[in-house]
């Protein structure tokens, strides 16, 4: 007994969505958590560790929420296979904890009846028990426990109540309960009906309905789900998120940027070897800086997502936007990724995981980089101020502003059109029914929000950073090597691989009006869109484009580029995948190079066609 008592045990948390399962997981394991993906799928795997008072180590797995073991999505398939102990690469759990919202037992009882068929020992955790008591809900715990054949523990995860007892119960089961026979099979419609009436019978026998049922949620919904007022409130919330991602993140991101430039200068002074200095300063430090610079936006976006999810509002937003987004074949929840992508596609693509359905999520990821991100603004600003006259029409419409607005609209509209085409042409049959629970409103728990926020940061740094950093260093190497020959007169980049590639692809880009300077700028511009401006500055030898060089560059572009060329460059930047970080994060989020490749090809194609059309049209209008 002593040997087995100290052997580590495995616990798996199963439950309906919105039952506070993750809060219970956090209460059990605290910060001892690890987030990764399950082998071969993009489903997130959350595991934590706890040590019982007796010294036994327990591994806790937080499985995706589900209403049934009959899985429909990859997430639910993971839950089913983990419970049945047949998930590849996973040790089967010793004990299952079925997490229930004590105020909403009907559906979870049916799930518990399914778990009973599996034969694995399980505990029913009646979470949010304080709310049930406050509502005057009476549950005959002993009777209910007898009926479902499993011990019951009442918990309040957010206050850490009942946690010790739950651990004790699970540990006792892990040591003593023999495995029963697994008689579970996928239930037919008729069997689901039977299970429902069985659950209904149990409910009638052991649960007395609340004396003071919750009316707050209904009252809030009367306003928030109201078609017109609800949409107005949602617009206001979207505006706040947009503002926050755009303006709150900028000072911090700028601070990180400046910090890394200073660090680079400092290192540059110490290291004298020119190659080593370039590798450290321009490659490594600048590369790490360019990964870290995304953090403020990621934190802000996920902060809002967690508030919306935990409060229960996210489902309402999806309800209000379902029809609107549905026109383009998008899920109602796609508003978060698309909104965030207007600041930066990196947090946008990461946040697409709020969408459960695989095809809906992939469609959203594919169009996210078409939204006008803030890194395009320096490019747009340069071309517009250099080539578009500042003319005012009807007293208030400035031509330059109009072009900028047109570029934003072009990004958004083309994104929606691409989504429409993907859903109507390629994934016609994959249309998912829209059905979701509108959970009871709850105040978000600070601890949970912070813990989950921290996990996002770790995931980004660990997984995305590992892809983005090498790509950044690759772009640096291409732009640096080989060195210019002795006595060379042109800018150094002209002699590098980037220069060679630029000259090599220039004939391909000539039909869309690009000169060789522009063609070369596209290569380092893969590190981030705004880098193209700095590279143009280098090629035209104007010095620092953020200082006095900016005006000089603007003058050079204004005098040496035709309007047609400038417009073509703008059209290119609306569509082109000029950002390796985006491709890297798509690789991470979709678990492979297939989707980043698809994204790269379709965006380059659109960019080329758009630039070609723009250039030819402009030349025909005499702007060549």
């Amino acid at each position, binding site marked *: 007994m002593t040997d087995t008592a100290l052997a580590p045990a495995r616990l798996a948390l199963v439950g309906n969505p919105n039952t506070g399962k993750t809060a219970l997981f956090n209460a059990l394991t605290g910060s001892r958590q690890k987030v990764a993906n399950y082998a071969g799928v993009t489903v997130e795997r959350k595991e934590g560790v706890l040590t019982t008072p007796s010294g036994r180590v327990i591994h806790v797995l937080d499985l995706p929420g589900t209403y049934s073991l009959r899985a429909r999505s990859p997430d639910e398939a993971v839950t089913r296979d983990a419970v049945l102990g047949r998930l590849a690469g996973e040790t089967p759990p010793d004990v299952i904890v079925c997490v229930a919202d004590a105020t909403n037992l*009907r559906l979870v009882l049916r799930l518990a009846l399914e778990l009973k068929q599996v034969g694995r020992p399980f505990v029913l955790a009646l979470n949010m028990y304080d709310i049930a008591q406050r509502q005057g809900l009476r549950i005959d715990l002993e009777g209910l426990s007898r009926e479902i054949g499993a011990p019951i523990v009442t918990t309040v995860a957010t206050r850490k109540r009942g946690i010790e007892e739950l651990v004790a119960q699970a540990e006792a089961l892990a040591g003593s309960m023999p495995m029963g026979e697994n008689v579970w099979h996928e239930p037919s419609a008729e069997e689901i009906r039977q299970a*429902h009436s069985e659950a209904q019978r149990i409910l009638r026998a052991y649960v007395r309905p609340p004396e003071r049922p919750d009316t707050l949620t209904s009252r809030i919904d009367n306003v928030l*789900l109201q078609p017109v007022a609800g*949409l107005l409130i949602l617009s206001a919330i979207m505006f706040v998120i947009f503002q926050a991602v755009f303006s709150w993140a900028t000072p911090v991101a700028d601070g990180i940027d400046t910090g890394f430039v200073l660090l680079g200068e400092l290192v540059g002074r110490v290291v004298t070897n020119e190659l080593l200095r370039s590798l450290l300063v321009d490659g490594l430090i600048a590369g790490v800086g360019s990964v870290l610079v995304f953090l403020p936006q990621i934190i802000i976006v996920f902060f809002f997502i967690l508030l919306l999810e935990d409060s229960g509002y996210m489902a309402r937003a999806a309800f209000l936007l379902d*029809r609107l987004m549905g026109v383009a074949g998008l899920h109602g929840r796609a508003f978060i990724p698309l909104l965030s992508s207007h600041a930066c596609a990196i947090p946008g693509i990461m946040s697409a995981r709020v969408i459960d359905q695989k095809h809906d999520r992939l469609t959203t990821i594919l169009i996210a980089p078409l939204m006008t991100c803030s890194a395009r603004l320096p490019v747009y600003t340069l071309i517009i101020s250099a080539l578009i006259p500042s003319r005012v029409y009807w007293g208030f419409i400035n031509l330059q502003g109009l072009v900028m607005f047109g570029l934003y609209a072009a990004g958004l509209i083309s994104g929606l059109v691409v989504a429409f085409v993907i859903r109507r042409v390629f994934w016609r049959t994959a249309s998912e*029914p*829209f059905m979701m629970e509108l959970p009871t409103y709850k105040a978000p728990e600070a601890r949970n929000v912070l813990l989950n926020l921290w996990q996002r940061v770790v995931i980004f740094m660990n997984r995305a950073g590992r892809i983005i950093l090498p790509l950044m260093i690759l772009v640096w190497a291409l732009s640096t090597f080989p060195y210019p020959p002795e006595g060379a007169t042109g800018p150094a980049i002209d002699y590098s691989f980037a220069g060679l590639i630029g000259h090599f692809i220039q004939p391909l880009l000539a039909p869309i009006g690009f000169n060789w300077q522009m063609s070369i700028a596209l290569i380092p511009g893969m590190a981030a869109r705004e880098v193209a401006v700095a590279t143009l500055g280098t090629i035209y030898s104007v010095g620092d484009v953020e200082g006095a060089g900016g005006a000089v560059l603007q003058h050079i572009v204004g005098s040496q580029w035709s309007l047609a060329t400038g417009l073509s460059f703008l059209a290119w930047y609306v569509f082109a995948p000029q950002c390796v970080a985006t491709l890297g994060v798509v690789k991470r989020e979709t678990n492979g190079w297939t989707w980043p490749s698809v994204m790269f090809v379709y965006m380059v194609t659109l960019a080329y066609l758009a630039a070609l059309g723009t250039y030819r049209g402009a030349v025909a209008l005499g702007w060549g």
Partner: protein
Amino acid sequence: MSEALVLEPAVATADTVADIIDLGLLSARRIGARGTIVRVHAPDDELERRLLELGFVEGARVEILQEGLFGRDPIAVKLDDMRVALRRREAAAIQVRFDHAGASA
């Protein structure tokens, strides 16, 4: 009830109308409609099972709480003691015996 209708078919007054069973699809009704689910049937067995799993089962109480702005779609319904959002297309699989406005509680 059907007996009463057979006996006095010609004199359907306001009172007897209230007793006529008001059967209909959940998808065809407006805000405020409420009743008891009598049949859940979708041509697609998968959809039927999903509706059942979410609690749309014979005997459950439903009430339409809200409708979307565009085409009055989707709808938010109260389903026993929970709330669920779904599109009218899916709600067409749910047949309901609606409480009649004139019926006494």
